[in-house]
């Protein structure tokens, strides 16, 4: 029981899970789950009470029992006491102050990451304003490598997302060429297939592999089918670079996705076994998003942002190249409007970075939420300031396969221009050699006989 008296009124919270939920900034998914604060006053009371909770309590009182959930076991079994030492005596509010201190820089943040649990990250985010989330995330530096190096300070990478409603290879290739000519694709060229079959995945992976080899593009490929489908394609000889999977923060939610920690480990070993990645071992690509546990009926009475942070606890056990929170995709019953989507995007990026993950954000929304392009511009700009590792690049921002709006090739170029962010170094050099983008970050005029337009005659 946690109790606090404010303005002569006493507020009580039955347990840590309830306290976290009530301290969470307002969002529709927590109301839907019945865990949100009943009033603005109760929310701030919960924030006060949460700020006084010692971090060590999160190790002693797991939100979901150790025996009942393999994600809890993963989090507690891999917690590093030595890394935790510098902040072990702090409260949640004290951790916020420590994170904001001038003396806390990238080396300190990187060193403390294995000592922080997802629940600690979620807790501190709840007592931080948007500017705190931006500032602390901007101090973190999480760098990963495959053929390109993603996450270096001063850089911004883009996942090129060339989806097509029937997986038509020429349609997909057309979108890829468009994206490359706009300087995008240095995080990954990643296709969401319309059909989840090993044959289709193999076909698309071979096409991407051909393209990457032919034009010597310093990037990696991915076809975002279920992990078991990709493993089957890999066994049939498909040239797989990155192994993708959607993940969530509880064992039951992961099970509804048809995965377990054991299966993810198996998938990673299979991808590593191909020997296509260097010594980094960064062969995984994960996607997450607030609300997935509730959607699967597997939220254990926790708020959706805390569960999202636990998904990052899953991700970091597998040393991914990329983690992408698809923040506005799930719909207004979880994030109702632009304000909630913006807050959630900043929280996810902050929590992921704090836990040592290479975070990207799919800045997106669906047409039945109260959001528009202006909200997305705001979130994109804030994430650029916060040092996001990568964003999506979708032709015109309109994904014709998945039916939602994401960031466009033009949007990512806007962010690079505005903040002087450069592409991944290997990719930047390639863009220069291909005369696509100059050192001044300006896109070059593309002549009709450009190499990328060669094999696609009129």
């Amino acid at each position, binding site marked *: 029981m946690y109790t606090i008296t404010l303005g002569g009124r006493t507020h009580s919270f039955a347990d840590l899970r309830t306290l976290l939920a009530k301290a969470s900034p307002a969002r*529709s998914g927590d*109301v*839907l789950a019945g865990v949100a604060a009943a009033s603005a006053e109760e929310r701030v009371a919960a924030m006060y009470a949460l700020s006084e909770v010692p971090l060590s309590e999160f190790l002693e009182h797991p939100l979901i029992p150790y025996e009942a959930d393999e994600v809890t076991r993963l989090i507690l079994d891999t917690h590093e006491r030595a890394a935790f030492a510098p902040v072990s005596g702090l409260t949640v509010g004290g951790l916020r102050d420590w994170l904001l201190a001038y003396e806390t820089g990238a080396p300190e943040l990187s060193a403390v990451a294995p000592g922080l649990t997802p629940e600690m990250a979620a807790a501190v985010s709840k007592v931080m304003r948007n500017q705190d989330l931006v500032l602390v995330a901007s101090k973190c530096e999480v760098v990963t490598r495959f053929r390109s190096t993603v996450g270096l300070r001063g850089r911004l990478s883009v996942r090129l997302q*060339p*989806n*097509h*409603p029937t997986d*038509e290879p*020429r*349609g*997909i*290739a*057309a*979108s890829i*060429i*468009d994206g490359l*000519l*706009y300087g995008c694709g240095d995080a990954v060229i990643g296709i969401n297939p319309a059909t989840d079959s090993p044959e289709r995945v193999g076909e698309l992976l071979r096409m991407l592999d051909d393209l990457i080899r032919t034009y010597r593009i310093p990037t990696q490929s991915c076809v975002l089918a279920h992990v078991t489908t990709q493993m089957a394609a890999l066994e049939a000889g498909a040239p797989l670079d990155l192994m993708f999977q959607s993940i969530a923060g509880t064992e039951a939610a992961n099970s509804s996705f048809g995965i377990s920690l054991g299966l993810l480990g198996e998938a990673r070993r299979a991808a590593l076994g191909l020997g296509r990645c260097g010594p980094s071992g960064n062969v995984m690509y994960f996607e997450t998003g607030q609300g997935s546990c509730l959607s699967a009926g597997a939220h254990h009475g926790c708020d959706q942002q805390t569960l999202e942070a636990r998904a990052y606890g899953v991700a970091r056990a597998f040393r991914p190249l990329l983690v992408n929170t698809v923040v506005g995709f799930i*719909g*207004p*019953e979880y994030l*109702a409007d632009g304000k909630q989507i913006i807050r959630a995007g900043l929280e996810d990026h902050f929590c992921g970075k704090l836990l040592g993950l290479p975070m990207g954000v799919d800045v997106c929304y*669906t*047409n*039945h939420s109260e959001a*528009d*392009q202006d909200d997305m511009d705001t979130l994109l700009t804030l994430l650029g300031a916060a040092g996001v590792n990568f964003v999506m690049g979708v*032709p*015109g*921002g*309109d994904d*014709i396969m998945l*039916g*939602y*709006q994401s960031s*466009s090739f*033009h949007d990512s*170029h*806007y962010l690079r*221009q505005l903040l002087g962010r450069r592409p991944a170094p290997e990719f930047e050099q390639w863009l220069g050699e291909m005369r696509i983008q100059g050192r001044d970050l*300006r*896109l070059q*005029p*593309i*002549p*009709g006989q*450009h190499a990328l*337009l060669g094999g*696609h005659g*009129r």
Partner: protein
Amino acid sequence: MAADLVPEDGWVFLRRHTAARIALGRSGGSLPTRETLGLAYAQALARDAVRAPFDPHALAAALRPLAPDVLVLESAAPDRAAFLARPDLGRRLSERSAALLAALPRSDPPPTLAIVVSDGLSALAAERQASPLLAELLPLLRAHGFRLAPLVVVRHARVGLLDPVGSALGAEMALILLGERPGLGTPDSLGAYLAYSPGPGRTDADRNCVSNIRPEGLVAREAAARIAGLLAAAREFRLTGPALKEPPSRPSLGAK
């Protein structure tokens, strides 16, 4: 003047391979004016489709020539805002509608199929696509010897509403036709979901889906053939869900 400011991308010819928004050109590196307005326009149509009011009685009147027995019911969602925020309300009938269904005399033998039509996330989709689809589908179902329960038109339904309606009508199978989440350029796309042995505790994993039903996507005649094929197979194998494989599609006469 504008042509000098916004040179055309030299790969416009690639557009013939995809409906994706490629080769848009650029103002500096940003979207040209015409493209940013084009995006705003497409989003405005989709937004309006989500908010458009739905008149279930008007749709019921339009459907009566196809199926004389039509019931108008309501879900537990009192209005559009509640419907969007609370998916659970869209999966239940209002108390009044549930009582109305419970009071109906049970047909003997029980119906093979209960069909529900709803606005879902796009009233436009229900208004534009339901009639042409049912005009193609109902004769196919009758030819299969299906006994049809009264056609149910409901405002503010989610897919899951097919379970309480199907089980209240004692139907062996249930089919719901409802407006899909509007995308850019697709404000009026209808989706069809079917379930064998509808009832409590069923989830998406127990259903099959045929989506993108609209003149520019899956045309009514082909959609009807696919839905009828799935329903016939579901009845034969007594199940729906991923284990039910769609029969290989045959090009239908008259379709483009």
